[in-house]
């Protein structure tokens, strides 16, 4: 006699077996003629550049950290939610239970909000935009000359675009 877990194991084994069987049949039947176009990652012709394991920008890190912190505090809401609507408790206390539970949770969430507000005021939630550095060049030609030329041809470029 199989237990429930035994049946589960049978399912997994049968699944793996079937998968192997079908892939094996496919391998035997299909022609095998590789060429560079076929082996490319994107058959649409897009050339992949660089490695996928690049490091993420540090800017993601603070936001992610804040998210982890506030997200995990939510687990305390689950046990609260179970007893919050408990009809027995509400009837026994003439409805005061609900208000009591609500007030308790307001205090808890209020503290979390204080923490979030602190992070906000400190500016940790602001998305820092990269400031493109204007390349400085040292040329004998003064900048005013360039500006004059730019101004002169400004109208033409506008027309072109």
């Amino acid at each position, binding site marked *: 006699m199989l237990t429930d877990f035994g049946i589960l194991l049978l399912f997994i084994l049968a699944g793996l077996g079937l998968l192997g069987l079908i892939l094996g049949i496919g391998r035997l039947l299909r022609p095998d003629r590789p060429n560079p176009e076929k082996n490319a990652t994107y058959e649409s012709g897009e050339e992949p550049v660089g490695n996928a394991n690049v490091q993420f920008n540090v800017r993601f890190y603070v936001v992610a950290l804040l998210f982890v912190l506030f*997200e995990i505090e939510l*687990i305390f809401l689950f046990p609260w939610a179970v007893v919050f609507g408990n009809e027995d408790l509400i009837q026994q206390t003439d409805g005061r239970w609900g208000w009591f539970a609500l007030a308790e949770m307001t205090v808890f969430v209020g503290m979390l909000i204080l923490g979030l507000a602190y992070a906000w005021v400190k500016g940790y939630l602001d998305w820092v935009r990269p400031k493109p550095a204007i390349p400085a060049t040292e040329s004998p030609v003064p900048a005013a000359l360039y500006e004059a030329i730019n101004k002169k041809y400004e109208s033409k470029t506008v027309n072109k675009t």
Partner: protein
Amino acid sequence: MIQPPAIPEIIQLIPLKSYLILSTALFVIGIIGVLTRRNAIVIFMSVELMLNSVNLLLIAFSSYRSDPTGQVFVFFIMAVAAAEVAVGLAIIVMIYRNTRTIDINFLKKLKG
């Protein structure tokens, strides 16, 4: 008071001993990870593995005893572990910014 329900049969299907062995195994894997690995993040993950093995053990005991306090403790462990993760990652990022590495073998300024 709400009466605790009896232990469901489906839980009793697997003996408590199996849970004990599994979580001890996970815990020992975590300890070995902390002691042998050199990458701060991997050590950190090993510590998390230890904490989660504790969670598993607590939940197993808690359901075998039909006593919810064990599960409440698990909530606390999860929340505190998240706070620890936040601080730990902040420390690791701080070190990475200063040294461009998270290999703990590079950190040996303090000796004596």
